[in-house]
C-alpha cells in the first residue's frame, strides 16, 4: 500500500500545501495536480469527474484520489496496485484531524497554520506511503493544536484544570511521548488523569429515503452512529448494555470494542480512546416485516405541479406525521438550468394553533444555483405548511428536477427507539458522569 503523498489545492486549483514527495521527481505532484485540474475543467457539471483519476504520463503510472472540502480539493496520489479506498479513508481521517485542530477547514485556517498542517502530514503519512498515527488522541501529544499553543503562551501557571496533565509543560514532547507510545492499547494513551470524569454518548440516527411519484416509500434506511466523548482517567474498562440491542443490525465498531462479547452478550465492552470517537455504526431495520424493511417517513408532501411554457406553478403541502417537533426542516427544489426567478407565498393550516407568519418559515431562490429553498424552523405535529408559487424560465419547456430534497432534524428522538440500559465501569474506582442523548435527522428525496 502506497499513498505517495497528499496535496491540498485551493479553489482555483493551485497547491497550498503538499507533502514532501522526497522520493519522487519534482514533476510528479505537478502532473497529478494538472490531471485533476484538467478533469475538473472538462467536466460538464459537478459530480461527473470520477473520484479516482488515472495518471499515466510518467514512466510509472499512478492515480489521484480526490475529495472536496470547503471549496478546496484534497488529493492523495497512489501508485501501484493500491486500494483507492485506503487513500479515501486516509483523506477522511486527515480531514477529520484538521477539523479537530482548527475547527473549520478553510484556505485561511490552513494557510495560517501551515506549520501545524505540515507537522500533521509528517506524522500521519510516512514517506514510504504507509499511514501512521491518525488517531487524534495520540496526535495531540505529538503536534500541539493552535489553541493549546496559545493557551500555553497565555497561562503562566502550567496547571490548567481540565487539561490532561500530560499536555502541560513547555517541552511537552519529552513527557508526552512516554505516555502516548508506551501504551499497550494503540488507541489510548497511558496515564490520563482528569479531575472530573465523564463520558457522553450521542446516538445519531439518519434516515435516508426515497419516496416515489405516487407517494409510496420506495426505500428508507436508517443508519445510526454512537458518537462518544470520553474524558476518563486511567484505563477504564466499560460495558455498555442496551435494553433492545436487536434493533441494531450490520454493526461496525471502533477497534476498541471487543467483538466476541458483542456476539455473545450483545453488550459493548471496551476501553475507550480519549476524547471524541465513533463507538459504533449500525443500521436499524424494523423487525416486523422482513421483506420490506422500510422505516416510515415522518412527514408527507403533497405536490401539485403545473408545468407551463417558460415556467410553471406549484403548490406544496408538507405535513408532519410525528408527535415530536421537527426542526430545521429544509426543502430544496432545483428549478433547472434556465430558471430565472421564483415567487412564492407561505401559509400554514391544521389543528395546531394557527399562527401564520414569517416565524413559520421562509423561502428563497438562489439565482446562481437555481435552487428554491423552503425552510421551516419548527414543525409541530400534525400541522400543515403550504408553499404556493411560480417560477419563470428562459426556455419554453422548463426542466426542473423531478425530485425535492427534504432535510430535517428531530431532537431527542430515535427512529429505532434504541435504549441504553446501563454503563458499567470496571478496573477503575472513581465515579463518573454518564450521559446519553438521542438525535435524529433525515434526508428524503421526494419525487413527483
Amino acid at each position: 500500500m502506497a499513498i505517495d503523498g497528499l496535496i491540498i489545492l485551493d479553489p482555483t486549483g493551485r497547491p497550498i500545501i503538499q507533502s514532501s514527495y522526497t522520493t519522487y521527481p519534482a514533476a510528479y505532484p505537478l502532473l497529478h495536480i494538472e490531471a485533476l485540474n484538467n478533469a475538473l475543467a472538462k467536466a460538464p457539471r459537478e459530480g461527473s469527474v470520477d473520484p479516482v483519476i488515472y495518471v499515466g504520463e510518467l514512466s510509472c503510472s499512478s492515480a489521484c484520489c480526490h475529495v472536496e472540502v470547503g471549496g478546496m480539493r484534497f488529493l492523495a496520489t497512489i501508485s501501484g496496485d493500491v486500494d483507492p479506498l485506503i487513500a479515501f479513508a486516509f483523506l477522511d481521517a486527515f480531514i477529520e484531524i484538521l477539523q479537530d485542530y482548527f475547527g473549520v477547514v478553510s484556505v485561511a485556517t490552513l494557510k495560517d497554520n501551515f506549520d501545524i498542517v505540515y507537522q500533521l502530514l509528517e506524522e500521519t503519512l510516512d514517506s514510504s506511503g504507509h499511514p501512521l498515527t491518525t488517531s487524534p488522541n495520540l496526535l495531540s501529544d505529538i503536534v500541539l493544536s493552535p489553541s493549546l499553543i496559545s493557551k500555553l503562551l497565555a497561562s503562566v501557571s502550567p496547571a490548567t484544570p481540565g487539561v490532561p496533565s500530560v499536555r502541560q509543560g513547555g517541552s511537552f514532547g519529552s513527557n508526552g511521548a512516554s505516555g502516548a507510545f508506551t501504551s499497550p492499547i494503540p488507541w489510548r494513551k497511558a496515564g490520563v488523569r482528569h479531575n472530573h470524569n465523564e463520558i457522553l454518548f450521542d446516538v445519531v440516527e439518519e434516515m435516508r429515503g426515497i419516496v416515489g411519484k405516487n407517494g409510496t416509500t420506495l426505500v428508507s434506511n436508517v443508519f445510526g452512529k454512537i458518537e462518544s466523548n470520553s474524558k476518563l482517567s486511567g484505563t477504564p474498562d466499560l460495558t455498555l448494555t442496551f435494553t433492545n440491542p436487536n434493533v441494531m443490525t450490520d454493526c461496525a465498531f471502533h477497534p476498541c470494542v471487543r467483538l466476541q462479547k458483542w456476539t455473545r452478550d450483545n453488550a459493548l465492552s471496551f476501553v475507550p480512546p480519549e476524547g471524541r470517537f465513533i463507538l459504533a455504526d449500525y443500521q436499524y431495520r424494523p423487525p416486523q416485516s422482513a421483506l420490506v424493511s422500510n422505516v416510515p417517513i415522518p412527514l408527507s408532501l403533497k405536490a401539485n405541479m403545473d408545468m407551463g411554457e417558460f415556467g410553471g406553478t406549484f403548490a406544496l403541502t408538507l405535513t408532519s406525521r410525528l408527535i415530536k417537533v421537527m426542526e430545521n426542516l429544509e426543502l430544496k427544489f432545483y428549478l433547472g438550468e434556465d430558471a430565472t426567478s421564483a415567487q412564492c407565498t407561505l401559509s400554514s393550516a391544521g389543528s395546531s394553533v394557527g399562527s401564520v407568519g414569517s416565524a413559520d418559515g421562509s423561502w428563497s431562490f438562489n439565482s446562481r444555483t437555481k435552487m428554491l429553498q423552503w425552510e421551516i424552523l419548527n414543525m409541530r405535529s400534525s400541522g400543515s405548511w403550504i408553499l404556493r408559487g411560480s417560477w419563470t424560465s428562459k426556455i419554453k419547456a422548463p426542466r426542473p428536477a423531478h425530485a425535492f430534497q427534504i432535510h430535517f432534524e428531530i431532537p431527542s428522538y430515535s427512529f429505532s427507539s434504541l435504549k441504553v440500559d446501563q454503563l458499567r465501569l470496571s478496573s477503575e474506582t472513581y465515579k463518573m458522569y454518564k450521559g446519553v442523548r438521542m438525535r435524529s435527522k433525515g434526508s428524503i428525496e421526494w419525487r413527483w
Partner: protein
Amino acid sequence: MLSVDLNSEYRDKRKDAIKRVIASMTVGKDVSGLFPDVLKNMQTDDLEQKKLVYLYLMNYAKTQPELVILAVNTFVKDSEDPNPLVRALAIRTMGCLRAEKIIDYLCDPLQRALRDHNPYVRKTAALCAAKLYDLKPELVIENGFLDQLRDMISDSNPMVVANTVAALTDIHISATSNQPSDSTSDPAVFSITSAILNKLLIALNECSEWGRVAILNALARYDATDDKESEHICERVVPQFQHVNGSVVLAAMKVIMIHIRNLIRKMAPPIVTLLSSPPEVQWVALRNINLLLQKRSDLLSNEMRVFFCKYNDPLYVKIEKLDIMVRLASDSNVDALLSELKDIKAIGQTAILIESAAERCVNVLLELINTRVSYVVQEAVVVMKDIFRKYPLTYEGVIPTLCANLEKLDEPEAKTSLIWIIGEYADKIDNADELLGIFVDSFIEESYQVQLQTLTAVVKLFLKKPDSSQGVVQRVLNTATKDCDSPDVRDRAYIYWRLLSTDPGAAKAVVLAHRPPISIPRTTVSPALLEELLGEISSLASVYHKPAQTFVGHGRVGADSVQRKGSEISDAQKALQTVVAGQQAENLLDLGDDSAQDEQPSGLAATQILPSTPAAANFLSGTSANPLDDLVSIFGGMETMDTGAGSLSTALSPTVTSLSSPFEGFGGSPAPPSQPAQNAQPQEDLLGLF
C-alpha cells in the same frame, strides 16, 4: 533579514523566522541560501522547531546533498536523545533524506532504534529499514536488519508488528521486482510461514486500521496448507468486516476471496454499510461490488433498494448503481427494479448506455414481454428495437418471443419497431413473409410510420429471400403506390420499385446497408479475468476492472524498474495477459475514465470517436459507393430518423446520436444541424432523473 532573525538571540524570533522560511519554501521560493543559518537552529529543545528544521532539510536534501552532510552529526546525536519522539524523528528524517552520504551514517542509529525500548521508535525504525533497502539493499542485509525485522514480527506491541509487516512486504516487493525467477533464495523474500501466520492473526485484532490493512494484505499472500487452515484464517478475518474503516473491510474481503474463493453471506451487510459513506468511497465500493456480483449475483438480491439512485448522487455513482441494479435483477425483485427505473425505456437506455448491462437488460425485457400485458409488451418491443440497433446480431435468440406477441401490438411505435426487427432479421425468421404479410394486409389502415416501415421491411425481406417473398413485395408496392394517401409513402414505394426493377444489386447495397457491428463481450469481464480480479478486491485493479499489469507500470519512480511486474509473471498470469490482450480490443466497463491509458480506445470511448475511425469511414464510403445513393440514402437517413424520432433521439447514449448524425448530414436530410444539440439535452435530463 531572515538570516538575521535566524541568528537572533531570542528563541521566539528564531522560531518565527524558521516558520517564514518554510512558508517561502512552500510557495516555491528558493531559500537554500539560508541553509547554514537554518541548520544552526536544529539543536533545540523545542520539538516543533526541530521538526520545521527537519522539514527544511528534507526539501533540500535532494538538490543539495553536500549541505545535508553538515547535519549528520545532529541527526546521530538526536537518535540518542532521551525523548523517544526526537529519536524517532531523527530516524524517520534520515530515512527520507535519500542522500548517499547520510545513508552510511544511518546504520548504527537504525540498529539501536530497532531495539529501542520504546515501541514508537521501533515502529518508526521498521519502516526506515525498508526505505534503506530501497536505496542500498546490501546495507540492510549486511547489518542483519532483515533478521531483526523478522524477529520483530513477535514484538509485544501490535503496532510494531503491523509496521514490521508493512516494511517486510515493501522489501519483498522491491526484491522480487529486481531479480526475476530465482528469487526464492533471496533473503529479502518475505514468505509467510504458518508460525508467522499465527502472530499476524493475533496482532490483527489489536492494531490500528492501517496496521490491519497491512496485515490483511500479507495474509492474502499466504498459501494455506489445507482447507482447514484456510477456514481458520477466514474465521479470524471475518470479524474485520465490522471495522468502521472501509479499507479494512475490503482488505478483509480480499483475504476471504483468496482463501476460500467464494463469497459468503456475511459480506453483504458491510457492503451495504459502505454505501452510506461519502460518494467517493461509495464509488470505489460499488466498483468492487460490481465485481463480486459477477461472481455471485444473488449475494445482494435482497438489498437492491440500497442501490436506488438519488437525484443528488454524482453521475459516476449513478452509473455504477444502475449497472449493479440491473445485475441484481431477478424474479423476486424485478418489480422493484422496474418501478425504480420508472419505465421500460429506462432499461433500454441502461442497456444502451452500459454495454455490459445489455444482456441483463434484455433478460429483464424478455420477462416483461412474457407478462403479456399489452402496454408492457409494446414498450418492451420498442426498447428491444433500440437494443438491436445498438448491438446487432447479438440477441437474435429473443426474436421468436417478440414475434409471438405480434397481435398484442396496437400502437404505431411498437408496430414499427417490430416490423423493423423482422425486416432486419428477415433471413433468420422462417415465417417473416407471413408476419409481414399481416401488416401488408392491413396496410391502408395503418398509420403513416407503420406504412413506411412495412414497405422498407418487405423490400429487405425480398432482397434477402427473393424466392418466397415475391408476392408480398409486389402486393405492398402496388398498395403503396396506388391506394396510399401519404406522398412520402408513395414516393418511397416508387423509388424502391424503380431500384428493384433496374438494379437489384444497388437496392441491396442501399436498403441492406449495414451499420458496423459493434462487438461487445457478453459479460463485463471474462471469467478468467474475473477470477483474477476477485483476488484483487480492494485494489486499484478491482476499481478499473483490469488486471494490475495493464496499468500498474513500473512501481515507484527511481526505485523500481520495468521488470517489477514482469518478474512475477507465472504461467497463469501469462495466460491471463493473453486474455487481456483480447479483452483490450473488446471492452471492459470503462466509461472513458482511463482515456489516459496507452491502449486501444475501447467501449464507449471507441464508439464515441467512431466517425473518425476507419470503420466509420467504411461505413460512410460504403453507402456512397453507388451514385444512386445520394438519392436513395435519403431513405437511409429518413429511416434512421423515422424510427429514431420516437426512441433514438431520446436514447441516452451519445453514441447513438453520433451514429445517426453522419447519416443526416450525408443524406442531406432536412434535419437542422442543431439536432445533436437538441438531443443532448433530454439525454442529460433523463440521466439526471435517475
